[in-house]
């Protein structure tokens, strides 16, 4: 053997050794489809491979991709014995092809898991956004059921306790329209894990629940029977919000561990949303109850005298504020005439804080009604109660003691730091009541003067807060409504009933303010009603007016 021949053989055997030990699996197949070479890595990956054997016999999955002469080989992948393999070809000059095999099972698995995780994250993110959209418990439950059937199950049932034995139940079925609701008596013990879920205990695995044993009230008729069931608690703030039951048809396959985990995360978010909705409803109910006492009262005719009030809080969303009015029947006068105390006031500040103080002042005034005869004394006692408890809170107000005197109305008016009332006479003249007094709640002693007057039939006394005269508006939005404008509008209301006077002034000031911000505005009108005309008997004569 020549030296050259020997060197060539050595190089070839060295190359063969490198080929055999290469970490990447490879096999070479001749033009006729016979396996020519296999390296160790290929044998490890596909133990059935044999040199000299036909590719179609030892690797049929690859023979379909192996090119016939004259065609180009292409990269190809398939699952072999549970492993995902990718085969990439290299063509040689002699017509043979080397296939490089790569096991991509783990890569694919990670990629699939990542895709599942991404879609799960998107679902939970979308669910959170949707759940934030409503603070109404019923709507919230419908959203939960709807989201669940969109992404997790064929049907979903959301349960929450309504009363001790009754449950509010919302059911949604995929492809069957909007969720439906019912409140019914049912026994949670009929479903394994449901009673526990409603108490906030961790969920039982889906495989522990026998779908065949599910009660009829749980399985919607649209899905026939349940193939698998997941029961998961809806945890709330402190106390459980309810439970979520997911159902799949028999053909849909069981819930995977990952799906159960997603269901638990979704349930956690859903429970918090339901809990927030329930807390909001409770707060709204409490607020409504408290608000009822703070709202101005509905006024009506008392002892033949017309009373009408109007109130517009500073913030459009508020229903209460710092302005208030009240009308209280009092003890009769010494001559036995029915007496009424009307009060209109303005507490410093705006919104709920002012409304709370307003409530306290109204309660105090109510307790002081036995002193209604003596306005200055009543104001002094109210002043004492305010001065002693808070040094920066004060109120301006007007007291009006109203008594019927035949067809007239007798008035005693006392203003304490407040704009004096207006008297609208029958002929359209407007007088300002001559009463002045100090703020209540600031000085140790309240000083005030009381003004007495009478209203003839059809005449009105108008009490108002400075929110009306100070309201900015007009053509440029910068002018105050002002006292003169108020007096002019009031004068135009001469002879109108109290309610019409209030409506007219409210309409004009609302137009004036437009969309501008404004302070609380309150009005109280007291009118001596016009006599009602009685025609003479038989239709003759002038007839007469009755008081």
């Amino acid at each position, binding site marked *: 053997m020549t030296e050259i021949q020997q060197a060539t053989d050595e190089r070839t055997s060295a190359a063969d050794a490198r080929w055999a030990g290469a970490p990447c699996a490879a096999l070479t197949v001749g033009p006729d489809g016979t396996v020519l070479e296999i390296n160790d890595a290929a044998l490890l990956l596909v133990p059935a491979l044999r040199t000299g054997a036909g590719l179609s016999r030892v690797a049929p999955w690859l023979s379909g991709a192996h090119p016939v002469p004259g065609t180009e080989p292409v990269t190809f992948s398939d699952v072999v014995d549970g492993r995902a393999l990718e085969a990439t070809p290299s063509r040689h000059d002699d017509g043979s092809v080397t296939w490089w095999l790569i096991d991509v099972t783990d890569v694919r698995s990670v990629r699939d898991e990542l895709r599942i995780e991404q879609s799960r994250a998107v679902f939970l993110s979308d669910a959170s956004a949707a759940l934030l959209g409503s603070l109404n418990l019923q709507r919230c439950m419908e959203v939960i059921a709807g989201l669940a059937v969109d992404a997790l199950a064929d049907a979903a049932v959301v349960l929450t306790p309504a009363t001790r034995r009754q449950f509010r139940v919302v059911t949604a079925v995929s492809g069957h329209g909007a969720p439906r609701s019912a409140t019914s008596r049912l026994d949670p013990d009929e479903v394994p894990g449901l009673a526990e879920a409603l108490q906030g205990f961790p969920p039982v695995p889906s495989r522990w629940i026998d779908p065949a044993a599910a009660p009829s009230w749980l399985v919607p008729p649209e899905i026939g029977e349940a193939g698998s069931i997941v029961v998961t608690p809806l945890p709330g703030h402190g106390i459980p919000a309810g439970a979520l039951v997911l159902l799949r048809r028999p053909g849909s396959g069981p819930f995977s561990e990952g799906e159960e985990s997603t269901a638990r995360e979704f349930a956690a978010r859903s429970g918090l949303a339901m809990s927030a909705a329930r807390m909001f409803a409770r707060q709204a109910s409490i607020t409504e109850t408290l608000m009822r006492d703070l709202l101005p009262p509905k006024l009506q005719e008392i002892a033949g005298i017309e009373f009408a009030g109007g109130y517009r809080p500073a913030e459009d969303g508020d229903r209460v504020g710092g302005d208030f009015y009240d009308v209280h029947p009092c003890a009769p006068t010494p001559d036995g005439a029915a007496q009424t105390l009307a009060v209109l006031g*303005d507490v*410093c*500040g*705006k919104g709920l804080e002012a409304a709370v103080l307003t409530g306290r002042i109204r309660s105090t005034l109510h307790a002081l009604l036995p002193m209604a005869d003596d306005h200055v004394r009543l104001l002094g006692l109210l002043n004492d109660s305010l001065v002693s408890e808070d*040094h*920066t809170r*004060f109120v*301006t107000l007007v007291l009006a003691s109203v008594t019927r005197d035949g067809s007239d109305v007798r008035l005693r008016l006392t203003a304490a*730091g*407040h*704009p004096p009332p207006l008297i609208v006479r029958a002929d359209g003249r407007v007088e300002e009541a001559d009463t*002045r*007094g*100090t*703020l209540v709640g*600031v*000085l140790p002693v309240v*000083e005030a003067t009381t003004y007495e007057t009478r209203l003839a039939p059809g005449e009105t006394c108008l009490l108002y807060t*400075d*929110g009306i005269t*100070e309201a900015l508006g007009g053509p440029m939005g910068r002018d*105050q409504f002002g006292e003169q404008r108020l007096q002019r509008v009031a004068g135009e209301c001469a002879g109108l009933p109290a309610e019409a006077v209030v409506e007219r002034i409210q309409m004009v000031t609302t137009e004036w303010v437009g969309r501008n911000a404004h*302070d609380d505005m309150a009005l109280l009108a007291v009118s001596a009603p016009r006599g009602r005309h009685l025609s003479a008997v038989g239709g003759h004569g002038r007839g007469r007016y009755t008081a």
Partner: protein
Amino acid sequence: MSSPDPAPEWGASKVRLRDHVPRPGFTVLEVIGEIDQAEAEVIRLRMVELMQQPGRGRAVLDLSGVGFFGSHGLTAVVRSSRAADELGVPLSGVTGPANRAVQRPVRMTGLDQVIRWYPDLDSALADGLS
């Protein structure tokens, strides 16, 4: 003696506040514009700040530049007066010589019994020295 440069004006849209020391021992807060609820609180806070400064002497709330003085103006004065009492600082007010927008509500509500009022700044300063 020349007075120090006035401090920069500050405040919100409807009202401008300017504090200055016209003579030693007097701090003046000048209010120009219309006082609404938000500004009432700004005025009180600024008054408290001025009254807490060392060597503060007397404080004057000058409302001669106020064109509209409603219930929120009352609030500003009452709260400033309370703060002055707590800090032991004499506080007086200026209505402006012919400023009915301030004079009338001050008289009507009894604010003239809460703090001492003067028609102009000079008379407030002169009375403070006597």
